[in-house]
């Protein structure tokens, strides 16, 4: 055997080939590129702002807005500032989103479970619902509800009336409860009651897990949430009067009015998102192994408890992550309000305020940041929840 010497070629410019050096160079170049682009944008923007005489800064927040808003959760008048208009819009966005999320979840779970029903016609109907809803654009559905359904309701004078509730093309009017003094205390008591009963429910659950015996929690819940506030309500003599809507001329006065823009947006958002949630729920339930259902039936559980106690808790682990993104989608989609004039954040702030002040950069920047912030908060909360219900592997 001849000994062949292994020849090692010496690498030239070796340091340049080191991955560390290479990645450092690439990253420095990237930063330089980002800075360069940012600087170019800054320079052009500055130039444009100067030549077009666009005001900059956030002073516009404290100017009187001079417009009114059709639905406000907090009082708002024309002489209020843009800052307050921003707040009104944000609250409206959160309001319709929260209701939409709740409704969409309810409808979505019903339809998703219904699609797996052994009843042929129910399964087919739910399947049809999902196909139709998911294959039509959301904006189409919003406009449909707004223009083709709600706008064609009778005029105020020919309202459909259900007792003191009137339905017409200006929305739904209902008596507005006017509470006397001390309602704040009652509301506070009720809120504290809800909180305490939640705490109690979780303690009861822990007790059940530890000892195996069940603690009845509903009497305590009833006491805390209903009995004490009602008692306080009566004891403090808060009293309630109803401001009923009344037809005066061509329109209604008084009462509580739910505007059609809100209704159209809420219906469209919740039914649309429900179509997607239904599919997620269905996939989640199908992901639970058949043996689980069979074992539960073998233990003698009926169909309802099998779903509630065995299948859904396991399915939730699969369902939660995509469900989160659907909730986020719903919140982002609520910005379509601008197409029918529901005064949400985009409509009031990025629409009217932007048109009035012309300060596109500040306003759009803030709007985008608000949505980003909401998205991040919700992902964070849902991640926490997901971690709580996740399978604890040992």
């Amino acid at each position, binding site marked *: 055997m001849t000994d062949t010497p292994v020849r090692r070629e010496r690498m030239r410019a070796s340091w340049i*080939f080191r991955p560390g050096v290479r990645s450092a160079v690439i990253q420095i170049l990237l930063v330089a590129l980002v800075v360069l682009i940012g600087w170019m944008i800054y320079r052009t923007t500055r130039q444009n702002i100067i030549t077009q005489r666009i005001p900059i800064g956030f002073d516009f927040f404290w100017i009187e807005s001079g417009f009114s808003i059709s639905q406000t959760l907090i009082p708002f008048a024309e002489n209020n500032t843009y800052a307050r208009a921003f707040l009104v819009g944000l609250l409206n966005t959160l309001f319709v989103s929260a209701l939409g999320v709740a409704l969409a979840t309810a409808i979505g779970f019903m339809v998703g479970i219904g699609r797996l029903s052994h*009843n042929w016609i129910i399964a087919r*109907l739910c399947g049809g619902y999902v196909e139709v809803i998911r294959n039509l654009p*959301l904006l189409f559905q919003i406009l449909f509800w707004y223009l083709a359904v709600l706008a064609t309701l009778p005029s105020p004078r020919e309202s459909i009336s259900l007792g003191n509730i009137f339905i017409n093309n200006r929305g739904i009017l209902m008596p507005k409860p006017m509470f006397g003094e001390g309602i704040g205390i009652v509301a506070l008591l009720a809120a504290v009651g809800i909180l305490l009963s939640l705490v109690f429910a979780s303690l009861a659950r822990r007790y059940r897990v530890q000892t195996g015996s069940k603690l009845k929690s509903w009497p305590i819940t009833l006491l805390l949430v209903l009995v004490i506030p009602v008692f306080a309500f009566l004891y403090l003599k808060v009293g309630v009067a109803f401001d009923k809507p009344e037809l005066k001329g061509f329109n209604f006065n008084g009462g509580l009015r739910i505007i059609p823009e809100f209704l159209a947006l809420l219906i469209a958002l919740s039914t649309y998102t429900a179509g997607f949630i239904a599919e997620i729920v269905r996939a989640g339930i199908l992901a639970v192994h058949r043996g689980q259902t069979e074992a539960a039936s073998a233990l003698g559980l009926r169909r309802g408890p099998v779903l509630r106690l065995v299948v859904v808790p396991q399915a939730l682990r699969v369902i939660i992550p995509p469900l989160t993104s659907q909730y986020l989608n719903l919140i982002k989609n609520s910005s379509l309000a601008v197409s029918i004039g529901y005064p949400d954040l985009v409509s009031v702030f*990025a629409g009217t305020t932007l048109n009035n002040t012309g300060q*596109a950069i500040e306003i759009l920047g803030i709007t985008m940041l608000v*949505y980003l912030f909401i998205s991040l908060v919700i992902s964070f909360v849902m991640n926490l929840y997901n971690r709580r219900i996740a399978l604890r592997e040992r």
Partner: protein
Amino acid sequence: MSAAFVRMETLPPRPAPFAATGITGWFARRLFATPGDIAMTLIGFAAFVLIALPMFRFLVFDAVWTGENRDACLNASGACWPFVAAKFNQFVYGFYPYEELWRPNLVFAIGAVLLIPLLIPSAPLKRLNAILFFGVYPIAGFVLLTGGNLDPQRFVIGRFVRIPESFDIGAIARVIGVDHLDLRSRWGFRGTFWLDFIASAIVLSAAVAVIARLFGTRFTTSLKAMAIVFGALALLIVPVDADFGLRWVETREWGGLLVTLVVAITGIVAALPIGVLLALGRRSQMRLVRWASVAFIEFWRGVPLITVLFFATYMLPLFLPGGANIERLVRALIGVALFSGAYMAEVVRGGLAAVPKHQYESAAALGLGYWKTMYLVVLPQALTSVIPGIVNNFIGLFKDTTLVQIVAILDLLGQVRAAFSDPNWASPTTLYTGFAFAGMIYFVFCFAMSRYSLFLERRAGKSVLRMEAERR
């Protein structure tokens, strides 16, 4: 042990169970199993009848099929189809000039001819087909729809050095050997620009080659690469610069389904490269690259598309030099491309994560560098595995194109909505007819695509099963 009770006689047979098979069995099991079920079945059936029957009557039986104007539909209780017929061009092309309609039609036709074989997995010549659809078709479509003849003035060097008009014509004619008058007046090629292009290509290639040499790349390799880059650029610029004698049609005149398709297809085609780069960046070992990609992706995914469109309409003109001159549709397209690029990145990331680790390791063992590993080994597998995801993304984008009407670009839905206010066609059922028509078009497109994506998923599932079976 004593038995307390012993049965002495055989029990009488129980009655036969209600049929569990056959049609009656099916009805018993699937519709009338329990009293609750019976109630549900009846409610469901009633709901179906209450929805389907009036719809069918509206669309077919009570519909008006012929007519010249609103008079035909005034007393109708069904759809007013003459309204759709009269507005059909507007719904499909917007206000695209009537005598030029052959151009969008040709674009539709070429698109269909290229797309259908691309969608059929067993059709031959996939690579050529894909190049034609993703490379040639967008350029051809652009030239046909706009008219092309962009006539660029400066490339790179021309921005720093002024190239005298008198100098270039002779030079370019001499270089190419064609009569300069012909090049400029007949084909619309501006001599100053092309001289600028050639000079810039030479100078930049040389510069890159010198820098790359410092990093150990051979001159020939880098020059070849630069030749490919500038060759591709020239191939891109020549057709859009050339004057084919087509009239320039401003995007302001486009509308309807044409805009819907243009926005959706441009969005998805532009999103692919953006998405691939971002997805690779997000999985990069380099921290800053990863952070930048994550920030970019999460930003665009965290904001609603409307704000993106507002951004494109109101902020882009401030950001870009001469931004106010960019047409509205183009601005919206930029916004849509960034937006859908971020979503695409997440789809591609899923595909990258699904490529088994040994593929990366084998590629490394073969001595492939990063880009070759990605281009030759990883991306082909990753992208084929996420085609259903890409199709789903496209469905979402297709539906989202309706949002452009909020920034005053009239897509299909926008045109339909605009047509509602035409007094010539004001009738009780015009509104519903318009919604029915638009709804059917959106439904057909989206439903077909979602079925296609399901088909691909099933096929992929089958091939995985087959592969596993072969391995055993």
